[in-house]
């Protein structure tokens, strides 16, 4: 493979310092910055209830950004995204809850829910953990595992997308969401007692005890504003980097014209599956964080209502526009809360707004473009230096 392109590559290597700084350090710092800002500035400023709304807004943004990879970049119409979300939520919650339950000191006599939530957010009470409590690190680990499990399922769901398109693919993905929901209602009752947990054997975990139809409760609420918005920023970075890369161009080319993409050497099989895996993994991570926000998670999380909510974010934000879907997710998640005073009329207002949006901007808020591409200043600059944009990318 010693083509003209590959000969150019070694001559253009950036310095290691630059890579570490721009590739890893700056994004992590920015994500931490956003997390800390939300936790210590925005959170206290807006009050306790709005802060819980801000958590849910963060989850919505993550879902929108992840679905955008499949529906927006790649143009595959998936309406089972909540399935991945729920799988991530249950896996993450299962690991976190049972690991914590096994570790509770029985002498303290606390209720599990109480005991589990102790030690969240910058508490050194176990005297061993660094910066965050053990539980929070465990949540991060559990969320990554949840994301990986969801990504594995994304691979399986991605496979039919190779043969199906449009409505047919939509039905398959919808089916996946519903199957997930039904399977989750078949889980065994949750175990609340430490001794009972200790008495379980491997065969009891074949069908995991995750509460069935009544839901999975008392999950330690470690997902503070800081963690949720840290991961929101990380996912936005990921989504942006995918979009501004050869992988992203391959995905976009599949949406634009599959036949041309194949003829130009894009393995569309591989890239469709990649899109599904990545989107499912991010949705699973978001699901696990959601489970740790102090909610009871129920099998309905996998249902099509949530899938549709996310599709609305993506369609209204503009298929493929990261800033568009982020903005749409924020607005549409806050809107029902802001319209609470209108009580029963709020759904009507919500629906009217959606209809209005579709009339005024049928391609979504920003179409495929990003918000900054609308600023005349950057547009002019871009046409002068076409490769500038890639260079300044975070």
């Amino acid at each position, binding site marked *: 493979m010693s083509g003209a*392109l590959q000969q150019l590559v070694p001559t253009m290597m*950036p310095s290691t310092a630059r890579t570490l700084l721009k*590739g890893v350090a700056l994004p992590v710092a920015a994500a931490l910055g956003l997390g800390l800002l939300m936790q210590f500035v925005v959170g206290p400023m807006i009050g306790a209830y709005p802060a819980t709304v801000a958590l849910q807004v963060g989850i919505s943004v993550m879902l929108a950004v992840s679905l955008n990879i499949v529906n927006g970049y790649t143009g595959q119409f998936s309406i089972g995204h909540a399935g991945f979300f729920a799988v991530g939520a249950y896996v993450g919650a299962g690991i976190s809850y049972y690991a914590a339950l096994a570790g509770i000191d029985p002498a303290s006599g606390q209720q599990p829910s109480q005991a589990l939530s102790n030690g969240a957010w910058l508490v050194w009470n176990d005297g061993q953990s660094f910066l965050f409590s053990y539980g929070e690190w465990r949540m991060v680990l559990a969320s990554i595992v949840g994301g990986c499990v969801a990504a594995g399922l994304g691979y399986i769901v991605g496979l039919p997308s190779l043969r199906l398109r449009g409505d047919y693919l939509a039905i398959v993905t919808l089916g996946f969401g519903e199957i997930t929901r039904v399977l989750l209602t078949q889980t065994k009752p949750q175990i609340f007692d430490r001794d009972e947990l200790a008495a379980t054997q491997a065969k009891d975990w074949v069908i995991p005890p995750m509460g069935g139809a009544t839901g999975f409760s008392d999950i330690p609420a470690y997902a503070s504003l800081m963690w949720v918005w840290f991961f929101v920023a990380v996912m936005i970075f990921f989504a942006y980097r995918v979009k501004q*890369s050869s*992988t992203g161009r391959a995905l976009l080319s599949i949406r634009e014209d599959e036949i041309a993409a194949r*003829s130009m050497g894009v393995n569309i099989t591989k890239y469709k599956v990649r899109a599904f895996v990545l989107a499912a993994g991010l949705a699973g991570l978001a699901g696990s964080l959601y489970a740790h926000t102090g909610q009871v998670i129920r099998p309905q999380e996998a249902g099509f209502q949530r899938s549709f909510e996310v599709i609305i974010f993506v369609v209204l934000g503009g298929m493929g526009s990261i800033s568009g879907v982020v903005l749409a997710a924020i607005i549409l998640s806050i809107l029902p809360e802001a319209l609470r005073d209108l009580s029963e009329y709020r759904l009507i207002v919500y629906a009217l707004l959606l209809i209005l949006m579709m009339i005024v901007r049928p391609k979504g808020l920003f179409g495929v473009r990003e918000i900054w591409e609308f600023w005349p200043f950057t547009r002019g600059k871009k046409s002068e230096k076409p490769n500038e944009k890639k260079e300044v990318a975070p």
Partner: protein
Amino acid sequence: MSEYLLDVRSIGISFGGLKACDGLTVQIPGGGLHGLIGPNGAGKTTAFNLITGVYRTQMGSVTLDGVKVDHLRPHEIAKAGLSRTFQNIRLFSELSVLDNVKLACHCRGRHTLLGTLLRTPRFVAQERAMTARAMQMLEVFSLQHLASEQAKNLPYGDQRRLEICRALATEPKVLLLDEPAAGMNPSEKKALAQSIKLIREQFKLAVLLIEHDMGLVMDICEKITVLDHGCTIAHGTPSEIQSNPKVQEAYLGEPATA
């Protein structure tokens, strides 16, 4: 090993009872310029789709530079060094002109998800190389000033040229052009003929050309194959083709008989 760079031997496909392409043989040596002509519906584009793997050939074989490619999938064939343009322009219309060409560099690169997410030095270098290559290619076609424009906003002639430019960016050994002169005026056609010759020399590749404009085909092609109803009816140099009665019949109808 065949002496031909692109060796297409008696390929064919039937759609139901219709033999859209039946036993086509085209052999192009390195640096050759071969024309494929025939009336509408003769199966020229079908032949392209067979060679590039969009359809799988039901008989015969396609060999590119000694490698059998007829069982490969389209992206693998592109990687093997066969690139094409389309009769009805198939650009990635929402993407920028630069991204269209960068996408074509895709098959010469290596892409890992981890590299993409973490922006490793290799990834950054490859992206830079792709941009540099794409700009180079655009300059050949003097499209560089339009690099950040969306492809759909380009005038028709530029879109045609961008398609050729994109096809060349995959670093092919053989270029397949499907009616590149369609919709062009005479002076544009003349310029196109010049640039096809130029491309062939500059990029050292062989060209297989489908074209309806006889002037263009006769002018630049060394060998011509004529198709009608899926069958090869003539094969030879431009002058041989012009005097072939079968070809005249296919284009003009049977000669009047008393």
